[in-house]
C-alpha cells in the first residue's frame, strides 16, 4: 500500500497528490456523524462569536428586569409573588426568544446548505445538528435567566427534584421550538427576513399566561391564551417550581400541565421537523 508519505516531494507532483493521497471514503456518514459534525461547527461558531452569546444573554436579562421591576408592580398575580410567577415563564420560553432562525438563514445565504446538500449525507441530519446546537445555546439563555432570577428575588418552593424536572422541561420545550425556528429560517430566504419572521412568534409568547394571568385578558381572548402551547409549557414549569400548594391558584394540577406541555412539544417537533426536512430537501 503506498500512501502520500511514501513519496518524496520531488516524486510527488502537485498534480497527482490529491487523487493519490486521499481515498474515497468507503461509506457515507450516518445520521449521528452528520448531526454531531454540524452541531460542533455551529457551537464553535457561537462560542467564537461572543456577540451572539452576549446579545442572547442581554436580551434575556433585559426582558427579565423590565418585567420584574417596571410592569411587575402593576400585574396582579394573587398570592404568588410576581417574580415567582415570571421567572419560570421566562425560562420556559427562552427558546422562542433566541431567534435561531437567523443562523439557519445565514447558512442558507452563505451557500453552506448547497454544499451540504451535495454531500453523501442523510439530509435531515443537518437539521438535527442545528437543533442540537441551538438547544445548547438556548440552554445558556435559560441558565442566565434563572441565575439573574435568583438575584432579583426568585425562590423555588417545589423542591429540588421538581425544579430539576422543570429545568429539563425548559430544555425540551426549547428543543421543540428550534424546529419552528429552523423552518422559519429555511423559508425566510435571508437573515434579515428571518429576523423579521422571528418576531412573528411574539403573539404566541405574549398572548399566553407567561407574563400576565390569563384572567386579566378580555373574555374573547382568554380561550386562545389558555389553550395555546406556551401557556401549557409555562404552566408546567410554574407548577413544578412553585410546588403543590399553588396548583389551585394555577387552575389545574401539575400533571395536567406537564402532560399537555409534553403533547404540545411533540406536536411542534413533528410538524415543524417534517416541514423543515421537506423544505431542506427542496431548497
Amino acid at each position, binding site marked *: 500500500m503506498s500512501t502520500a508519505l511514501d513519496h518524496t516531494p520531488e516524486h510527488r507532483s502537485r*498534480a497527482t497528490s490529491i487523487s493519490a493521497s486521499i481515498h474515497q471514503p468507503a461509506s457515507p456518514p450516518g445520521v449521528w456523524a452528520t448531526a454531531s459534525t454540524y452541531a460542533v461547527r455551529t457551537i464553535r461558531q457561537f462560542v467564537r462569536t461572543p456577540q451572539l452569546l452576549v446579545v442572547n444573554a442581554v436580551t434575556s436579562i433585559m426582558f427579565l428586569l423590565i418585567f420584574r421591576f417596571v410592569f411587575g408592580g402593576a400585574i396582579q398575580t394573587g398570592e404568588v409573588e410576581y417574580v415567582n410567577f415570571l421567572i419560570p415563564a421566562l425560562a420556559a420560553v427562552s427558546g422562542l426568544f433566541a431567534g435561531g432562525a437567523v443562523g439557519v438563514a445565514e447558512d442558507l445565504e452563505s*451557500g453552506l446548505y448547497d454544499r451540504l446538500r451535495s454531500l453523501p449525507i442523510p439530509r435531515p441530519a443537518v437539521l438535527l445538528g442545528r437543533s442540537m446546537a441551538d438547544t445548547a445555546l438556548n440552554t445558556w439563555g435559560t441558565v442566565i435567566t434563572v441565575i439573574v432570577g435568583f438575584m432579583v428575588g426568585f425562590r423555588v418552593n417545589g423542591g429540588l427534584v421538581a425544579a430539576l424536572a422543570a429545568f429539563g422541561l425548559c430544555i425540551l420545550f426549547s428543543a421543540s421550538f428550534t424546529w419552528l425556528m429552523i423552518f422559519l429560517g429555511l423559508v425566510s430566504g435571508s437573515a434579515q427576513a428571518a429576523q423579521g419572521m422571528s418576531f412573528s412568534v411574539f403573539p404566541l409568547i405574549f398572548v399566553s399566561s407567561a407574563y400576565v394571568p390569563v384572567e386579566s385578558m378580555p373574555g374573547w381572548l382568554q380561550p386562545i391564551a389558555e389553550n395555546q402551547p406556551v401557556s401549557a409549557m409555562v404552566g408546567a414549569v410554574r407548577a413544578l417550581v412553585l410546588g403543590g400548594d399553588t396548583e389551585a391558584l394555577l387552575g389545574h394540577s401539575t400533571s395536567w400541565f406537564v402532560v399537555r406541555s409534553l403533547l404540545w412539544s411533540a406536536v411542534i417537533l413533528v410538524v415543524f421537523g417534517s416541514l423543515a426536512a421537506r423544505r431542506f430537501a427542496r431548497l
Partner: protein
Amino acid sequence: MSPIPPLPDAPGGARAATGGLTIEAVGLRKHYGDVHALAGLDLVAPAGKVTAVLGPNGAGKTTFVKAVATLLRPDAGSLHVAGIDAIARPDLVRRVIGLAGQNAAVEPALTGRENLVMVARLFGHDSSAARAAAQVVLDEIGLSEDADRPVKGYSGGMRRRLDLGASLVGAPKVLLLDEPTTGLDPRTRIELWESIRSLVRGGTDVLLTTQYLEEADQLADHVVIIDHGRVIATGTPTELKSRAGLDVVEVRVRHADDLAAIAEVLAPLGTEAPHLDEPARRAAVPVLEGTKALTEAVRIIGERDIELDDIGLRRPTLDEVFLTLTGAPS
C-alpha cells in the same frame, strides 16, 4: 535508488482516456413559474477534460450545475453523472462529486483546517482520515501556513481557494465549479486559475461555469455556450473564437483631424472597412492575424508620424461572441 516508482508526472497522466462521458444531459428542462431556466438542454462533458459552460447571467448555468449536483430535480429529460442516473440515484451521484458554489461557503469563525475537516467528515471520512485529507488539500491549495487561523482573517482569494479545497477533501471524480472567480479582482482571479489548473491536472473531471470568455479560454478544453437554457455552440476555445469573431485593432488618435489618415492606414489590414467613432477619436477594424496586423499598423503610423493616445489589439468580447453566434446581443 528509491524502491518507489515515481508517479506519472505528465499532465493528464492520471486521466481516464476512455473517451467516455462524465456528464450527459439530454433534453433537460427546469422551469420556475414562467421562467424556463433549462429549456431542453443537451450537453455532454467528455471524461478527462475540463468543460466550461459559458453564458450570460440568467442563461441557466447555475440551474444546470445545481441539477448535476443533485440540488434540484429537473422537470424532464435525463441526466447522467459519471455513468450514474442522477435523477433515479442522486445519493450515488453525491458520493462522486465535489461542489464549489458561487459564494465561498466557508465559516469565518472556524479555522481553514476546521472547515476542511468538517466537510471531509461529511464526505464520510473518519476523524483521522478527515484530518489527513484536510492536510493534503491544505498543501495543495497553498494554505498550510494559514491553516490554523480563523477564516475571517483570510482575503477573498484565500476564502475561494479554501472553498475549492473543501470540494476536494472527498477525492471526487467530478468537480463542479460554479463561477469560481466571480467577484474577484484580476490578480486574485489569475491566482485561482493557477490553483484550479494544478488541481485538475490530477485526474478529476471538471465542469465549470463562467461568464468570462477569457476564463473558459484559460481553463477549459471543451466549451459549451448556453443561452436561455439551451446550448447554442460547443467546441474548443479556439474553434469558438474563430467562429465567434476576429481580433480587433483599435486606435485612438490625439487630434480628431488625423482620423481620416488612420482610416487609410487601417483599411488594407482589415477584413472590412474601419469603423470610425469621431467623438471618441477612435477607429477600429477586425483583422485576421491580430499581432501581425497590429505590428504593421504601429509601423505605418510611426512612419507617418501620427500622434496617438492609444493603440491595441483586443479579443472579441463575450457580447461580440453572442452577437455572432445568436445574431442578438446577450
